[in-house]
């Protein structure tokens, strides 16, 4: 197995008394675009929340560079590992630049306020996500796709080698979904390790370099999409009969649900 700076060892994940996952071990290969997939309520987002230390595991440990993530000082961790949560709130009346600038939080302190460096990184992050032209607009006025790119720009401004994205394409139409995924692929190509939770298996298969499939809080399969996405796996995990063919665009696996009845001619 390749090196993994970030991994979860024998994780038990729970909210209050409701256990989501038990004895879950997973490693995020360095430099990969890892996508976590699985049916609703399988623990995808919970796993991502644990990997980003927003959720503390009941048992087991999340390790970053061999050290328990809980032992990392918060700001140092936030300079290594960026998170785009599933639902974030844009403060009322905030501009795009100001929201992206909030990504600089872990680089600032009481004595180290706004600097040229912050300035430069914020501008770069906005350019990289294509929101530079929106700099002075209010975030509440933007379309869903634009807003999502602004949030990604904020996570970028954190300048972390590892980026975790919780369902970054939810609530977007198909064109904006692809736009956001292309952006994630760009960020990955620039050398970041990207981890995303995605709902759409075909998107996952097309963009991921490494897939992690969960079912009922258990790791069912992991590896390259071409090896993981098979008709048997999809049927056993999602309970849906299907065919897997080659994506005519990319050659990656494409899941085609089986028709219950033939099309009405």
């Amino acid at each position, binding site marked *: 197995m390749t090196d993994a700076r970030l991994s979860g060892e024998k994780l038990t994940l729970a909210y209050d008394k409701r256990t989501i996952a038990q004895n879950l071990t997973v490693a995020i290969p360095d430099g990969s675009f890892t996508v976590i997939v699985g049916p609703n309520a399988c623990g995808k987002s919970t796993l991502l929340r644990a990997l980003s230390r927003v959720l503390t595991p009941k048992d087991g440990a999340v390790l970053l560079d061999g050290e328990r993530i809980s032992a990392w000082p918060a700001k140092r961790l*936030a300079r290594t590992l960026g998170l785009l949560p599933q639902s974030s709130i844009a403060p009322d009346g905030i501009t795009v630049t100001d929201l992206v600038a*909030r990504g600089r939080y872990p680089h600032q302190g009481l004595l180290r306020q706004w600097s040229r460096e912050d300035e430069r990184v914020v501008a770069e992050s906005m350019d990289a996500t294509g929101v530079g032209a929106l700099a002075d607009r209010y975030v509440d006025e933007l379309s869903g796709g*634009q807003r999502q790119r602004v949030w990604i720009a904020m996570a970028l401004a954190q300048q972390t080698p590892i980026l975790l994205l919780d369902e970054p394409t939810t609530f977007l139409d198909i064109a904006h979904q692809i736009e956001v995924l292309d952006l994630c692929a760009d960020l990955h190509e620039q050398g970041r390790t990207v981890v995303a939770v995605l709902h759409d298996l075909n998107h996952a298969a097309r963009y991921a370099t490494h897939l992690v499939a969960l079912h009922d809080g258990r790791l069912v399969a992991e590896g390259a999409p071409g090896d993981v996405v098979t008709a048997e796996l999809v049927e056993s995990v999602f309970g849906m009969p299907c065919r897997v063919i080659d994506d005519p665009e990319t050659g990656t696996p494409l899941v085609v649900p089986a028709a219950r009845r033939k099309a009405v001619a």
Partner: protein
Amino acid sequence: MSTLVETPSPPTARAVGARRSARVAGLVAALLALGVVSVASLAVGARPLPIGDVWGGLTDPASPAYTLVHDMRLPRTALGVLAGICLGLGGAVMQALTRNPIADPGLLGINAGASAAVVTAISVLGVTSFLGFVWFSFAGAGIVAVLLYAIGGGRGATPARLALAGSALSAALFSYVNAVMLLDTAALDRMRFWTVGSLAAGDPAIVARVAPFVGLGLLLALGVARPLNAMAMGDDAARGLGANPRRTRVVAIAAITLLCGAATAACGPIVFVGLMVPHLVRVLTGPDLRWLLPYCAVLAPVILLVADITGRVVARPSELQVGIVTVVLGGPFFLYFVRRRRMERS
């Protein structure tokens, strides 16, 4: 559909720099306004003084205005400044903490706790001096803050749970205050001025006693501006940025307790300033608390002093309590303001 447009990097460096200078200049202007209003507060009253006499009244014990300015109007003005800081900052921190735009220092029940403690002190324990109120007020505010945190979920506190717990506590405590005042008419008399909110009782000893608490509350509030900024985007986002929502919440509640306890002790529950000022200031500064909080701390005293001066002028030779003036003048203005804002947005 929006496409990735190749844009020249915006001149953000200059833009941010210019905006920063504008904000610093605005803050200086606000401080100047506070100075002007403070002088006016020393000069205006049942016996108006020319500005020249104000200086003499402050510094020269031989001046005929010395007693008036030094012993009455100076403490009253100082109290107005302190109470204004408390209400403006308390309201702004409360709104940020609960992510609730209609939050004011009354929302979390901390004012109610202070009031209930003072009523108990007057009615049951027979405390009569304003100096005595101070400690009861803080004790009441502190107890409610602890209760609030426990009922609101402790380590799992969320903005919604805090606001709900606060509203419930507030309702229960105010019905207790009303019950005591109805049953005990003598206490009612003494309480009447206090529950409306008045600066007239300004007394150098009260000012001196309250000031350190206000100072500490001010420092704590300004200290959590940055983590509260991060928390404005949700607890998960805040933790992702390396902030500590749990610790920030504790510090913010401590700051609110100090500020509300001090304001309530000194001049009774003055409502509305804490709700209104942060909204007005947000138009000037945007949602960035690093600017919003200092602006509130300067502009809320300006508004409170203007209200107090107005109250001294309109009903001469008698006075209207500042708590009444802020609502009578502030209410319609705020309605107009909210309406105009909504129309601009849509």
